[in-house]
């Protein structure tokens, strides 16, 4: 407890004045002292405009679940990659190499084998105490490492009709431009049936998602578009990345080397569907990544260069959603800079791993929106491309090959000023 010795009266008066000034300052500048929100254009988190009050409440409940960290007592694991959604998607942005997801498989005469008996296709490289994390099997011939994508704006991509993607596809390169986007076509599964049934059952859902093309479903989420919609993506991420079961995937992921079908001992499902739905709704109703400096001369010049290039043939600037039960997403035009199609990206990006109908060198076009805010969620450094190998936009472009080889050559031919303008534009997205 304080000493009873007191200050001289002169010093005491000065301290009173200082304290009074502090109080006045505190009361008058209360907002600033309590901190102010960052400029909305500098962050990816935030609600899509136009949500009703109950929708905002559900979004915020999903936000809480998205941030929730699971422990072993909650059902984490027994093997996992991360303990929360937010670990991989900090601030709703792109991921960091710390939480990279490794997938593997091997080439067999009959096709690509995702090696389920060896724990494939996804490596859960962490384990709860007392359990053993998976090791990469030596027999794997294809191994890829995947950086988590930004999640803002995904609800708009989820609400794009299948017919739009079919219209953008040009699998045989009929227009002869050297670019041939293909739909990721997936054999129907029980999971597809379940997630489409749930989504189509939503009040007012009248879109054309979940249609069959040649008897197969169109994938649109994931680096190789393996997930058909956000609900599947969320349930799968809970399961594969965190070891959290739900009604959609009710059995724990275990290490085959341990052979414990009992999992972590926590009763299933570890996440009720209300949680899965809340997180899915949260991701659906995140705002689109904000533009910055869109009126600057360099950005406008860069925009013109981009529009005139072949870049925009895959990184399609604008899409329009179909009918949606969420009015804020219903028939809206937005600017993701992706066509959600698979493209051959050349040998440099061929990891020898594949999913669905994609070849090993094919990747779904990465949306460019939010590119300028990527580093802010990745520890201050950019980790671009599917595995984070590129530390800058220029690095990423220089790794483009295959259908994008001509665009890389075009970029390299630009003058220094044009490059600056194009990069300014890309960073403004």
């Amino acid at each position, binding site marked *: 407890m*304080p000493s*009873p010795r007191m200050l001289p009266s002169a010093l005491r008066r000065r*301290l009173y004045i200082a304290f009074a000034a502090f109080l006045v300052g505190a009361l008058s500048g209360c907002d600033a002292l309590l901190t102010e*929100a960052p400029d909305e254009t500098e962050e990816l988190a935030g609600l899509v405009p136009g949500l009703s009050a109950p929708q905002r409440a559900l979004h915020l409940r999903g936000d809480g679940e998205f941030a929730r960290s699971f422990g072993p*007592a909650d059902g984490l694991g027994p093997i996992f990659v991360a303990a929360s959604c937010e670990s991989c998607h900090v601030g709703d942005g792109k991921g960091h190499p710390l939480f990279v997801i490794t997938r593997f498989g091997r080439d067999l005469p009959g096709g690509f084998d995702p090696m389920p008996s060896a724990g494939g296709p996804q490596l859960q490289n962490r384990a709860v105490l007392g359990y053993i994390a998976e090791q990469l099997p030596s027999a794997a011939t294809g191994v890829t490492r995947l950086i988590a994508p930004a999640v803002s704006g995904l609800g708009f991509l989820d609400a794009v009709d299948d017919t739009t993607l079919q219209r953008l596809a040009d699998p045989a390169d009929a227009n002869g431009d050297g670019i041939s986007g293909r739909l990721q076509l997936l054999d129907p599964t029980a999971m597809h049936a379940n997630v489409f049934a749930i989504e189509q059952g939503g009040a007012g859902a009248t879109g054309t998602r979940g249609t069959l093309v040649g008897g197969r479903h169109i994938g649109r989420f994931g680096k190789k578009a393996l997930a058909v919609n956000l609900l599947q993506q969320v349930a799968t991420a809970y399961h594969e990345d965190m070891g959290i079961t739900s009604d959609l995937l009710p059995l724990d992921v275990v290490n085959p080397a341990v052979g414990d079908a009992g999992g972590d001992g926590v009763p299933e499902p570890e996440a009720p569907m209300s949680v899965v739905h809340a997180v899915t709704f949260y991701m659906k109703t995140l705002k689109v990544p904000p533009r910055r400096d869109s009126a600057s001369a360099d950005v406008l010049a860069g925009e013109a260069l981009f529009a005139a290039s072949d870049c925009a043939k895959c990184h399609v600037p604008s899409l329009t959603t179909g009918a949606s039960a969420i009015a804020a997403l219903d028939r809206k035009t937005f600017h993701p800079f992706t066509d959600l199609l698979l493209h051959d990206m050349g040998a440099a990006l061929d990891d020898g791993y594949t999913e669905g109908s994609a070849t090993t060198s094919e990747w779904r076009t990465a949306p460019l929106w939010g590119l300028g805010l990527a580093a*802010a969620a990745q520890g201050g450094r950019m980790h671009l491309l599917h595995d984070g190998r590129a530390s800058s936009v220029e690095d990423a472009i220089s790794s483009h090959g295959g259908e994008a080889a001509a665009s890389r050559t075009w970029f390299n031919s630009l003058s220094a000023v044009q490059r600056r303008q194009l990069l300014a534009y890309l960073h403004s997205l």
Partner: protein
Amino acid sequence: MSQRQWTTRTGLALAVVAIAASSLRAQAAPPTSGATRSDTVRTVQSGIFDRPFIATMGRTAVGGYVEANANIAREAGIGDGLSMELRRFNIFLFSTISSRVRFLSELEFEHGTQEIALETALIDVLVNPSFVLRGGIILPPLGAFNVNHDSPRWNFVDRPLVSTRIIPATLSEVGFGVHGRLAPPRVGLTYDLYLVNGLGEGVIANAEGRTSLAGGKAAERFAEDNNGSPAFTGRVAVQQGRLGELGLSWYRGVYNTPFIEGERVDVTRSVSLTAIDVNTHIGRVEVRGEGAVVRVDVPEDLREVFGARQWGYHVDATLPLWRPRIRGFPDAAVNADVRVEQIDLNVGRFATTFAPIGDTEAALSVGVSVRPVSGTVLKVNYRRSRTVDLLGNAPVPGGAFQVGFATYF
């Protein structure tokens, strides 16, 4: 070293210290009652008895403290407005069973009845003032705050970060050991040595997603050890009248469960903590602080996500400003207070990027505290903080105004 060998050696060490301590001359009789204590030097060690008690009935005294506050806080502009809470209501029960045996307990109600915990329930058996046996639910002497954490003793509404997120105050443990006060020339010397059940797997296996010694405070620790290998904790401190007190404390134990029914199911993993604490005056300014370093044996696959090293510190400075003349409060005092604090919950660099791992927080708090009587304090604080996430992204600023009171009763 096997678990059994380690326990045996620790027991031998305790015995050696006990014999050495008994051979030294005692400085003064130990306190036998919190209400009528006879200590001449206020120490961290004597803190749990150095409390006012409201009533004495025969050989038993009852007391406690209550703490409430109002907060308005925001992080990066986001907050939930003004909120009030009854943070703690604690009841002490002290009993002088005989001239050489005393009992102290503390029952804590936190946030109303949200959390109810038996924080202390210990028996002291005086062999000699320099050698007092202690057993029961004790407060391991990790730094000074874990022992002396009563809210009326502190001038800020929030507890120090290092004392709650590095040192897991309030940490109560079941255990036994010895403590005492020795009397080398010109200084006081106190020591505490205990064996306790220790922290559990929650150090890693928690829902925080980070290393947390507080997460290791399993409720079962009062009933049984999760690994049959007790933790060893202790503190030595020197006191000098003008300079105050300087303490060094430590903790080491196994936190996981390497054996189940005698079968080895995991490797043995330990946690250790070393802390220093100081309480002194610089001119008119009272300075209290503590710093701590934690090391945790984290499984290889969990490293970087779960920190293997942590550290932190806080320094509180109190400047007496004024003694107002208030009828009925002849000892009223007004103080200016400053706290500087910092913690790093995950020390190291990422193997993939070589960038420093984040997970840090730093804060500066300023305030005024009014003590109408010594055991009652009114607190007005402003706290400014900067939190950096695991990946080292841009700091998130925080700001909070807090008004609170705490009083012994």
